[in-house]
């Protein structure tokens, strides 16, 4: 087996590390702006795909399959995002005799359509959020209103082909329904080329709980202890953890059984995640399934000791799952992940691409840092702004939180602005520490802050900041005034050459 990793950033590095550990040769691919990216150097071979826009590089199926041929790769790992849930890409791989590291193309297709996945869950006896089937654009206004009435308000209008919160609208009563349907259809059409929507009951104060599964080619499906992903900003996860404070052993068992029932029903193989909503009464409802590796898979790895990417590769090469279902279904300690984004949280979470001039990563007991950038790399404007994931493990949740705070205090990324100050603030919130939150928590508290900075000088720090600003400028200028520049990055050569004047050929 020789694996081409059709992705970039931290997840490409993650997968390439697994390839190296398993002794599997690897091929990395990159776009023009990613020439200096760490994943290019982590791969055994690295091939340029094309220009920076994703459509011409990481989404360019023809070019990627061309690289497969050039390099003799026999398998493709798609990571997450990009082509990971593209059923026709998976089908194309298999038709060419390539191993697509993920489930069968048919399963991706079934579980990728939101209403089809709901239907499969209903058939497998898994509870779903009350809602409709896909609502054709031909329905009359009266029919739409009637469907909405059956579901009940408040409700979500969702795009059948949805993702990332696009084509989604919340409606609190019949008054705004028709306009919201219009807006959602138009947005979904623009985003996915498919405007069909459906209605789903909005569950107030619900948590986002998900179950990681692995399935092999021989019918074995193993569910893992749940992940809690309710800390979201505009439907984007920010902090994930395992286990969830809200899940009792009984609910954990029931979630695992539901996950297995659905996976067996669709003959699910390789890694996948079932997303559920959990209400305040401990009832859960299937939401959707991600037919790929998730960003937040490390929290599961830390509380179970299982390397999920190793298993993805091993399953893809035909091995049987030999995991102890009882062990991986019970958490050993507690793990928390913080996603670090290149964004200016103080400026409305504006993207903040640019060159990283210095990077000191957190380390030490209980800390894992999965990062896709390094000092000297320019974070491009073309892709997602997540640059790193910090994961902390400790015997209990409180310990994992303090360890995470300690790690973030060590993390330094110079040259760009990151979400670290916002994460530090979030980890200090009382509700977070007490485990009292739902999927709306973060948006609510952010609204209450109404744009207040996350980086406030503490009493007495103002003078330190003034000193720092002045002294740093003083030294920057002093360097230029003195002949013998004391710069740690200057090699003896250059120092010597500078002193004796510029040599010429």
């Amino acid at each position, binding site marked *: 087996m020789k694996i081409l990793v059709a992705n970039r950033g931290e997840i490409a590095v993650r997968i390439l590390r697994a390839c190296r550990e398993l002794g599997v040769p690897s091929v990395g691919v990159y776009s023009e702006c990613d020439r200096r990216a760490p994943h290019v150097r982590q791969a055994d071979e690295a091939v340029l795909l094309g220009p920076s826009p994703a459509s011409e590089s990481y989404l360019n199926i023809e070019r990627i399959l061309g690289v497969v041929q050039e390099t003799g790769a026999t398998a493709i790992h798609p990571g997450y995002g990009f082509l990971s849930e593209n059923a026709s890409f998976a089908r194309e791989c298999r038709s060419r005799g390539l191993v697509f590291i993920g489930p069968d193309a048919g399963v991706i297709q079934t579980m990728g359509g939101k209403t089809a996945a709901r239907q499969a869950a209903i058939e497998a006896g898994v509870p779903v959020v009350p809602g409709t089937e896909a609502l054709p654009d031909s329905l009359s206004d009266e029919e739409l209103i009637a469907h909405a009435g059956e579901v009940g308000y408040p409700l979500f209008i969702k795009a059948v082909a949805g993702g990332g919160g696009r084509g989604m609208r919340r409606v609190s009563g019949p008054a705004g329904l028709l306009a919201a349907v219009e807006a959602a259809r138009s947005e979904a059409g623009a985003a996915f080329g498919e405007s069909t929507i459906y209605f789903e009951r909005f569950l107030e104060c619900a948590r986002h709980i998900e179950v990681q599964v692995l399935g092999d080619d021989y019918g074995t499906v193993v569910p893992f202890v749940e992940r809690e992903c309710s800390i979201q900003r505009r439907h984007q996860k920010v902090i994930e953890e395992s286990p969830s404070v809200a899940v009792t052993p009984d609910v954990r068992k029931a979630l695992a059984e539901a996950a297995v029932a659905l996976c067996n029903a669709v003959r699910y193989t390789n890694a996948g995640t079932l997303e559920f909503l959990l209400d305040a009464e401990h009832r859960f409802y299937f939401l959707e399934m991600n037919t790929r590796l998730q960003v937040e898979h490390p929290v599961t790895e830390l509380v179970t000791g299982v390397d999920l990417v190793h298993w993805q590769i091993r399953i893809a090469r035909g091995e049987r799952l030999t995991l102890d279902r009882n062990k991986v279904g019970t958490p050993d300690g507690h793990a928390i992940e913080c996603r670090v984004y*290149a*964004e200016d949280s*103080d*400026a*409305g979470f*504006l*993207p*903040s*691409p*640019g060159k990283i*001039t*210095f990077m000191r990563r957190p380390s030490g007991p209980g800390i894992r840092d999965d990062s896709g950038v390094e000092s000297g790399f320019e974070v491009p*404007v*073309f*892709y*997602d*702004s997540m640059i790193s994931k910090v994961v902390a493990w400790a015997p209990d949740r409180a310990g994992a939180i303090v360890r995470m705070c300690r790690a*973030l*205090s060590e*993390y*330094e990324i*110079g*040259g760009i*602005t*990151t979400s*670290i*100050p916002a994460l*530090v603030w979030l980890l200090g919130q009382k509700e977070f520490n007490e485990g009292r939150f739902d999927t709306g928590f973060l948006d609510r508290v952010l609204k209450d802050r109404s744009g207040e900075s*996350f*980086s*406030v*000088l*503490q009493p*007495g*720090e*103002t*003078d*330190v*900041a*003034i*000193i*720092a*600003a*002045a*002294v*740093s*400028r*003083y*030294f920057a*200028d*002093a360097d230029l*005034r*003195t002949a013998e520049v*004391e*710069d*740690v*990055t200057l090699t003896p050569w250059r120092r010597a050459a500078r002193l004796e004047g510029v040599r010429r050929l």
Partner: protein
Amino acid sequence: MSRAMRLSVEIDGQERLVTVEPGTEGSSLVTVKWSDRAYEVDVSRLHAGRFSFIIPAFGYVSHEVSCYETESGEVALGIGGRQIKARVADSSRPKRATVFQAGGDRAVTAPMPGRLVRVLVEEDEKVVEGQGLAVVEAMKMENEVSSPADGVVKEVCVVAGESVEAGGVLVVVAAGSLDD
């Protein structure tokens, strides 16, 4: 390194005239003064832009601070995991002129590099403060850039599909009451 330097430092919206005086040759001490304050500071440079300051007046704490100039010319100070923005200028030189700010025209700029997805207004169109003018996409996110004031769109400087730099002018708004 043997000469003093006078700088204007703006933090938290307040400007101070700060003097930095080096210690004796080979010493790691500098003196920093403004208003009625004077601090001895033990400076250790770890890397270009990264410092450890020990300020005896504040006890034995080692303040680890990183200092980077941002694209917009501000200094970003990394202190205890937070990012504080400051402006530093050599007080012996004139300040950077603020473009367009003087007259009634406001240049609305791209807050970060990206691709212009849509222009939401046309020339001569009346706009109100906070109204969306254009949408810039960067890192898979669409960001709406809005009008800083009521007024009239005087010029649209970009077309959809174009790449824009941080600080690049998107739209010029002639500020003024809409009833003018």
